[in-house]
């Protein structure tokens, strides 16, 4: 199945191994792209990420990933899935840093705020249910209520509400999943979300290239 071969850029800030483990578990094949050149033949890409926004964008820029990603994703329409910080890069920027994001999806990241009236723990860490707005995306349909593992302190505010696929509630309704054409993003960690994550990654593997 050609569809099921996924390239993952080898970034220092990723939990690459967890994602690779899960992709293999659901029948996919993983190629770790050590350099931007290795990525050029990709038919499908996953961009994981854990860490700080500017540090990540610096690494993408300094190692020359941005040009090749722009070309593959915007021109060749290669399906890409951003996970956590990987998804946050798709936006225009973040309160966490000063650097611009990839700007493929309109909107910015805001920090969670805990107020006296509505105190919340930051980061948003743990299992949360989804409220799904767009059924046709890669979010699976399952008998049990969907739940995913989240760990983040910044959340995306979509500039275009049509990009919003699902929300979760933590203090307020926050962006949990987005999609714009071939660009998919999830704030949570499907690679650490049991059968719920497996079903989602399977759906991404079966997206037509």
């Amino acid at each position, binding site marked *: 199945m050609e569809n099921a071969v996924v390239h993952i850029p080898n970034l220092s800030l990723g939990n690459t191994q967890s994602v690779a483990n899960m992709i293999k578990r659901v029948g996919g094949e993983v190629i770790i792209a050590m350099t931007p050149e290795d990525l050029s033949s990709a038919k499908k890409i996953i961009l994981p990420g854990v860490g700080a926004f500017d540090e990540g964008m610096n690494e993408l820029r300094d190692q020359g990933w941005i040009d090749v990603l722009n070309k593959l994703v915007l021109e060749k329409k290669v399906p890409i899935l951003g996970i956590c910080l990987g998804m946050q890069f798709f936006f225009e920027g973040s309160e966490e840093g000063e650097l611009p994001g990839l700007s493929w999806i309109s909107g910015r990241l805001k920090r969670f705020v805990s107020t006296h009236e509505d105190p919340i723990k930051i980061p948003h860490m743990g299992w949360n*249910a989804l409220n799904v707005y767009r059924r046709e995306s890669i979010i699976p349909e399952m008998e049990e209520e969907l739940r995913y593992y989240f760990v983040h302190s910044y959340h995306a505010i979509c500039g275009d509400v049509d990009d919003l696929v699902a929300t979760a509630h933590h203090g307020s309704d926050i962006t949990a999943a987005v999609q714009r054409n071939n660009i998919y993003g999830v704030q949570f960690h499907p690679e650490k979300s049991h059968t719920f994550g497996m079903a989602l990654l399977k759906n991404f593997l079966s997206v037509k290239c």
Partner: protein
Amino acid sequence: MLRHRVIPALLLKNGGLYKTFKFDKPKYVGDPINAIRIFNTKQVDELMVIDIDASRSQKEPNYSLIEQFAGECFMPLCYGGGIKTVEQASRIFKLGVEKVCLQTAVLDNTKLVKDLADRFGSQSVVISVDVKKDWLQRPKLYKASTGQSHSKNWLDFIKEVVDAGAGEVLLNSVDRDGTLQGADLNLISQASAEISAPLIALGGIGSLKDIKDAINSGASAVAAGAFFVFHGPHRAVLITYPEYKELEKLLKD
């Protein structure tokens, strides 16, 4: 809504899975990989694996075993035991582990907490705080690697590590360990009142009600060992975990 996490905490010793009683009398309960597979199929919220031998005998973390654990865990995994440097933590994260848990190396040097948080983010740094009552029933900070109490005030130490960047505190009551008698709710409420970071309560959990009580006392998450590996009055080894629906009902506000 975000649900409070319920976390099996597994203890490792020489590559086997053990359960202690008041930090003593380790009892062999089986093969860790097998246990992790069972917890995986039971869809546990998260898993902690602590090597109780590594710091005590000044050993390196068992990387090949940790790699096997990570390959089996389709839920977040926290590893603790024998981590003394940023390089060791980095190696463990690369194996596919989400969080590291430290105690021995940071008791006298919280700069390591800051270095880890700066490099990997606070969300990946858990500090384990063991507390044992003295003969006057005063809670004292306890150093698990030597089995002695530590001169620092336990609450001051918790505040210190959170200020240094710890994303979570694992508060373990030594006196309740393995007893299944319920958590030390006083310790939990005192600690959670002092910090904004999530508190994971460990030690003494023996029932679903104990989990609920710990949450009501301020814990963000509850971890347990004996409750998930022993069954019945004779402590037969049986790996269990409550059904999701049961936990959902229990922990609804």
